[in-house]
């Protein structure tokens, strides 16, 4: 469990937005390829896209990141109540906490660019929620964690996509800050899943184990 506590403090540290650095700060958003810029994009003096604009990757990102973030918080709350395993419960609490903070930051940026973000879960996440509501016990824990592994894998790719293809500096900065946290979450979820698989194996009486072979 010590392992997870270390991750938690890291996660919170990384959610605090950094001061907007000078242009040579390697962590600040790097210039994009103007080959993919939309005609009519406004530019600031330095030939970089003026702030508060979005390109199609930014827009795709806003949509998926908002929905994914909402789902993390809602499913996290659900799992914080329903999970039976302690590691799963703690993980779920951390998900709703970390992703609430991230969602707040994202929605501030999104408001500033004047895009109406999705406000509800999409079909995919709703279906996941319903499935989780209908299951309990070990099955719930298992389904939640397996779902979290996939969700965090998808989110990591989404954040990397925005970092490389997005145009809005604040969104790219947000994606850069969040990525290490998301990869940390992924490793936690994978560790919990591995532990649960081991326990499940240990719980099967030896006779059954033989029969299953």
């Amino acid at each position, binding site marked *: 469990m010590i392992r997870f506590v270390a991750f938690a403090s890291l996660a919170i540290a990384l959610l605090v937005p950094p001061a907007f650095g000078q242009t040579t700060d390697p962590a600040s958003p790097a210039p994009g390829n103007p080959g993919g810029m939309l*005609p009519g994009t406004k530019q600031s003096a330095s030939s970089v896209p003026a702030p508060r604009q979005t390109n199609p990757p930014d827009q795709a990102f806003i949509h998926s990141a908002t929905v994914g973030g909402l789902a993390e918080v809602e499913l996290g709350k659900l799992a914080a109540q329903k999970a039976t395993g302690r590691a799963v419960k703690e993980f779920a609490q951390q998900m709703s906490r970390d992703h609430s903070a991230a969602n707040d930051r994202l929605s501030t940026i999104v408001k500033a660019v004047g895009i109406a973000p999705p406000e509800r879960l*999409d079909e995919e996440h709703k279906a996941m929620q319903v499935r989780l509501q209908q299951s309990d016990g070990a099955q719930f824990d298992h389904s939640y964690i397996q779902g979290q592994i996939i969700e965090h894998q998808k989110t990591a790719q989404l954040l990397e996509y925005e970092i490389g293809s997005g145009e809005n500096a604040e969104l790219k900065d947000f994606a850069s800050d969040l*990525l290490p946290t998301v990869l940390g979450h992924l490793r936690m979820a994978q560790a919990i899943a591995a532990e649960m698989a081991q326990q499940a194996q240990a719980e099967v009486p030896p006779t059954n184990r033989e029969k299953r072979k």
Partner: protein
Amino acid sequence: MSKRLRVALPLAGAGLLAVAALADPLPPDATYRPLPTLPLDAVKALDEAQKPQVMQRQQALFERRYDLSNRPIANFMMSGGRKPVQGGVRVKLPAGVTWDSLSAMGPNEIRERGLLPAGFMPLPHVKQATGGQVFPNQEIDEVGRQELRNLRRFDVDFDLSDRFTPEFPPPIFLTTHPELGDVSHGQLLTIKNYYQLMVGLLTPVQMEGMRLLLTPFPQEEFNQTEDRKSADQSLGVTCLDCHANFHTNAAFHLTPDIRPQAARFRLDTVSLRGMFNQQIHGSKRSLRSVEDFTQFEQRTAYFNGDHVSAQRKGVNLPDRFDQVPMMAQMQNIIDFPPAPKLDPMGRLDPSKATQQELAGEQVFLGKGQCGQCHAPQTSFLDNNMHDLKLERFYNMGQTVNGQVALPDGAIKTLTLRGIKDSPPYLHDGRLLTLADTVEFFNLVLSLKLTQEEKDSLVAYMLTL
């Protein structure tokens, strides 16, 4: 619920989730190259305006990571005798630690305290969002002079100081003519001069292979469409624009094997010397023959592994039964530079080596474990890929100049024959000197080498 049921049920849940996860995928440009949205002159103007900032960022990164000063090893030259080898550890340490105090810590402590020297981290492309091939100025100038072909990009310049690149033009050694030594006449092989330099030395088949390796073909940044980074409609690039004289000039690009763009790692051109002895090719692709690599290089190095983009820009696909074998045969007669102190088993000849070099060999084969992967008897290779797991030492996912630092995974063991001739080091060129590589492996393999042992290892590697 019976215990047995409790185990069986979760598996059903996993099945449902796997199907559901197919919804809401990333847009196609996360995998495929998007078409340009602006006319070329607009893109060029924007790129040119951004260029100073792009170069400054990368320069600042290099200065933060490395000591770039001119500190050549005394009385020591690369194989052609024209360029000194830079010495000393160039990766800068974070405040408050020494190389010894760092190597006394475990990976967890180094990761949690953020103490991995930044120079050990993956090295981003000078402009990660665009990527593509970038040539050093010496290559650009010489190809311009000989062929009037333009290898300069309007959006970026080469980012690494000439001090840390290979000798240019590098010498050429042929397995078919060991008695001659360097056959380059001090010139860069191009389509304009290869015939007169090589007639009488090569067979007709090798000559034809050479011609193909020196013929320009369209490439992602150098082509005739609006999606390019050369000012003029370009004839393209040749194989030896990067593998200069069959060695390397440290030209770089991004790995074709990974998406999305921010996750792609940089690739430093490898030397083609001694390729006849290698059984796997490419740091990640593990292609099994020089023929395969030659065939695919025009879709991978040239077009980022995007055959759709390649088709549009006029890819040249060399004929597998006729042209590819000739190109391969030419590459397969390129030898390593001579190593007069090595015996036929790849071991130091004690009558020729110094005490320090011999001590270095001891460390290499013993405490340093280097020889287990870099086996002297097989050209310091093991024809295997290894995962050095550097990510034990840092938090994954940090963004550095637009690149996301991710685990490298398994990478092919690179040969150490002729290693003094081919800085920078590692697949992405993140290390500038051999002393840097010793500190890198000292940490990654938890070797706890003494300063004396480290110095002897460097002295030893200079003999290879």
